[in-house]
């Protein structure tokens, strides 16, 4: 029974050490508490609406005005100015008054009436991809419904339905699933939440280990780890981090998405089956990294920038199927890759246990491997 008391002793002292350390508390509690709120609030509008657009209408007829009125009425585009010529319109784009330009040529209506094809030219400032999407999709929608009416008129004697069948012998229907409005928060926040668990654990545990190093250099040794076996220390310490992060994770995974009305269609079995090994893998991963810490702060400088490449390695943004093999292989060295993929599919796509089995098995393999490596490193670290 002595070994159990030893573990509990390490656990108790390590917990006190965490709770007394301002810097560690920032990473374990303040960052996970506030950072996701900031992020989710920033992306809360999900998509960009009413992108300002300028218009050059050289046609100035009933048809061109109808087209532009319908574009203006769409949710994505707001026409902020009608310009006399392209020079004037371009100037408004240069001044960032508008981000899109819609050019209706003089022969717009004439062509339609003569049975020729009419072309409307759209221009988009490429400082943001969403401007492009907004102007293209709203103008295309308007033109499609306009086309239906025109076709009905052209097929003399045909009903609208007949004209429609003629133009579209095969109809099509688009059904967006899960993230139905292609929202930014819905797409990015789950990944950010899972990344935060890993990154704050690395920074917090790195700071604790750096603190030990600094003390050791000054001849101060933490009493509660003296005369303890490395395995006892490893289990005792990791026990603290795991306990704390069970609470942190409930907040991140259950409460934050609810606060911002993000999609949550998970079942608790899947969520627990995935989050538990994820926290374990993150803790032992962090312990491995922490053994390289020489002082309290250096990890902040060494590790934070990696959050961005790591986020891209998960495949949540740039698709996993297009990630080069080298980076793909590297990505499995971090728990975040499996964690983000499993969590996004569980929470937003309602994936069941059998759907995320490879990820969950992977997380358990990581847990075991990281644990063994951490143990080996602790044996070196804490040998007498």
């Amino acid at each position: 029974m002595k070994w159990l008391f030893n573990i509990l002793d390490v656990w108790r002292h390590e917990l006190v050490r965490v709770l007394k350390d301002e810097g560690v508390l920032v990473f374990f509690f303040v960052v996970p508490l506030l950072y996701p709120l900031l992020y989710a609030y920033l992306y809360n509008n999900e998509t960009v609406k009413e992108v300002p657009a300028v218009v050059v209408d050289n046609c100035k007829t009933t048809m061109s005005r109808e087209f532009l009125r319908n574009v203006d009425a769409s949710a994505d585009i707001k026409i902020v100015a009608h310009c006399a010529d392209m020079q004037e319109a371009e100037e408004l784009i240069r001044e960032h008054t508008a981000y899109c330009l819609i050019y209706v040529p003089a022969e717009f209506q004439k062509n339609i009436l003569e049975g020729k094809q009419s072309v409307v030219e759209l221009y988009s400032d490429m400082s943001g991809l969403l401007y492009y999407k907004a102007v293209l999709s709203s103008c295309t929608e308007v033109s499609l419904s306009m086309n239906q009416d025109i076709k009905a008129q052209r097929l003399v004697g045909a009903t609208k339905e007949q004209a429609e069948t003629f133009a579209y012998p095969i109809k099509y229907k688009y059904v967006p699933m899960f993230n139905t409005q292609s929202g930014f928060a819905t797409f990015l926040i789950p990944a950010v939440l899972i990344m935060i668990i890993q990154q704050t654990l690395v920074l917090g545990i790195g700071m604790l280990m750096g603190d030990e190093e600094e003390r050791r250099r000054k001849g101060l040794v933490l009493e509660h780890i003296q005369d303890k076996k490395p395995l006892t220390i490893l289990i005792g310490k990791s026990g603290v981090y795991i306990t704390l992060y069970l609470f942190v994770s409930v907040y991140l995974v259950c409460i934050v998405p609810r606060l911002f009305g993000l999609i949550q269609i998970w079942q608790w079995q899947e969520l627990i089956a995935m989050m538990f090994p994820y926290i374990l893998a993150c803790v032992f991963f962090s312990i491995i990294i922490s053994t390289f810490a020489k002082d309290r702060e250096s990890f902040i400088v060494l590790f934070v920038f990696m959050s961005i490449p790591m986020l891209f390695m998960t495949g949540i943004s740039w698709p996993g199927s297009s990630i080069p093999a080298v980076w793909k292989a590297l990505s499995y060295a971090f728990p975040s890759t499996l964690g983000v993929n499993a969590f996004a599919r569980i929470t937003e796509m309602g994936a069941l246990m059998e759907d995320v089995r490879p990820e969950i098995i992977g997380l358990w393999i990581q847990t075991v491997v990281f644990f063994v490596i951490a143990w080996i490193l602790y044996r070196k670290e804490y040998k007498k």
Partner: protein
Amino acid sequence: MQKLRKIFAVAKREQGRLTSRPLYLFSMILAPLFSYIFFTTLMADGLPNDLPIGVVDEDNTSVTRQIIRNLDAFQQSKIVEQYSSFAEARKAMQQGKIYAVYYIPQGTTQLALASKQPTISFYTSATFLIPASLEYRDMKMMSEYASGAITRSTLYAKGYTESQAMAMLQPVKMEMHAINNPSLNYSIYLSNSLLPAILSLLILQVTIFSIYSELKEETSKEWLAMTDNDVYAAIFGKLIPQFVVWLLMGFVYLVLLYGYFHFPLHSGLLPMIILMVTLVVVSQAFAVFLCGAVPSLRWALSLATLWGVLSIPISGFSFPKMAFPPALQGISYLFPMRYYFLVYVDQALNGRPFGYTWIYYALLCAFMLLPIVVMRRLKKFLLEYHYQI
């Protein structure tokens, strides 16, 4: 002259400090290089190709098989598997094997030939936003073609010419021009903003770390004594060697993006060199300001990190500023990266005259002057602080 010699002496001392710790080698050279290589190789194709799509073809006729072959031929899409039911395909989506499903119900060909207008449908999962929107584009275009092909052959049979047939099919057509990034290259769009943001984050962190490590090692008095307690000279001397390294990394970035990858550079290289120098100086100055404003290594470093990481979304290159909640739109003015991004867009991407950009430069210069406010505080702190664990 005397002063210059003192600054030079501090710079020489700093050079020794920078080379004595692997941390500086890692965070000033390896970390930026890794990020450059990572992002440019990750998105080397510009757009992701061969994104996996699943197909459910309940009809299975020569017509529907042709549709599927054509969809597969699109550059961005690749049919990876045919499923026997939609439920199976949805399962594959939930397993992360495919991002989209193209569904052709039974009887499609027969109904189409009988002019009964069958409906095919396609599904995407925008949990993975980028592949979903690219596959949506391909599947929509394919569906238009599928319909158009049948109508066109009817029209040709009736004696229509090609242009008449097109006018009949699509009386009003949209022609899209993506100004200065016609292929929608994601790397142009992301690397140009993410990489300077990472560089700026590292500058903020390393600057603060290097100043406060003097406190921690209790060498700050010795450092200031070298310039007879002239805090400006001490800071200048310390930051000059770092400036040289950062600038070098900045130039590697410029050469890589505009020289090697030939990303749009409509302003010529000079404005981007000026912008890079400005970014380095502003980041250093802002870090010194934080050191003085928050005299605690831990808090200054944490704040700098928060600033640096938040710079990425707040710059507004992926999710535009106009879509932020109003409160955060205001906060975006406090992030130098936001101005870097705006200048880059005006200069390199769009080649607009300097007149449109000067205001951002003015604001960046204001950031450079921020340390003046806290210099005296910083001096006092450097001279009187005792580090305790």
